[in-house]
């Protein structure tokens, strides 16, 4: 794995995930650890957050990726589904409307890797005012700093 580089993960709606998987980023290994999550109407915020950051059982996300796989995961394996905790992920692509649901988790992420990129979705165009990175950049300058 060290030789081949890092992965690009994606958390998004069906079209976004399908598109980027077509681009060739998908990984689903023997242990059923995907680097993508298809967010549908019944996907809970907790599932999204769990996938993105914290501990938790995410059977829903596995079912989205592989409907034939329903075995509950081992707790030891769950950690490796958390994209932020995986050291083999370099970039996380996330639809901005989904990023809004877990904004607190995104804002808490201060490391340079994995980099988090917010992308638009079909129903929700990209809004620069909501982007975590640009909001931090906007807070760089105050009136006093520019004197």
């Amino acid at each position: 794995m060290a030789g081949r580089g890092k992965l690009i993960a994606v958390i998004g709606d069906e079209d976004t995930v399908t598109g980027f998987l077509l681009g060739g980023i998908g990984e689903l290994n023997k242990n059923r650890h995907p680097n993508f999550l298809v967010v549908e109407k019944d996907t809970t915020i907790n599932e999204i957050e769990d996938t993105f950051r914290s501990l938790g059982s995410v059977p829903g996300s596995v079912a989205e990726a592989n409907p034939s796989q329903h075995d509950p995961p081992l707790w030891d394996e769950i950690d490796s589904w958390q994209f932020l905790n995986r050291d083999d992920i370099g970039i996380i692509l996330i639809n901005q409307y989904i990023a809004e649901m877990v904004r607190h988790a995104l804002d808490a992420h201060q490391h340079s890797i994995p980099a988090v990129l917010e992308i638009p979705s079909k129903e929700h165009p990209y809004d620069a005012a909501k982007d975590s990175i640009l909001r931090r950049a906007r807070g760089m300058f105050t009136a006093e700093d520019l004197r």
Partner: protein
Amino acid sequence: MKDLVCPLAVLPTAGGDKEGGGSESDYVSMAALDLRAELDSLLLQLLGDLEELEGKRAVLNARVEEGWLSLAKARYAMGTKSVGPLQYASHMEPQVCLQASEAQEGLRKFKVVRSGVHAPEEVGPREAALRRRKGPTKTPELQSSEAPRDPLNWFGILVPHSLRQAQASFWDGLQLAADIASLQNRIDWGRSQLRGLQEKLKQLEPGAA
């Protein structure tokens, strides 16, 4: 010029040495000038990066939208349920990987690398000899190497052109995503450098800052 960037130790104190007082304040003002110049340069670079980021974002958004449109056309041609998670392979290997390099401490650059890309097959005789008329000779070594399976194959053998266009759009999007991630990282790094320099300047010139 390095000796002009004065450490805090040479800052003038309240009951400071009168003889050296003038030279110390000169050091401080020279150091402050250097810091200001560095701040200006960093600020300009940051603003340039932000502008570049905005441009690349617009292109990424356009590519992704093109990809969705092509996917919709492919669905129209193949059927609504023919392009979606139900077609995902049970075993996937990434064709695209990311190379992350660290230029300076905290400053990372990302580059998308396509794995399993083979050089175009050489057609024709390998040696300067007459071509055999019995037909093309097989090259078993080349054919035995396994490349990651093209995700297009998940959707069938003959896929519509719109699906290939969608793949191309999202592939372009991945390249742009790597560039944007590099820019974001550079902006974050520049932001922390800016804060550090502003703090130093405030310590050198508490009144002016």
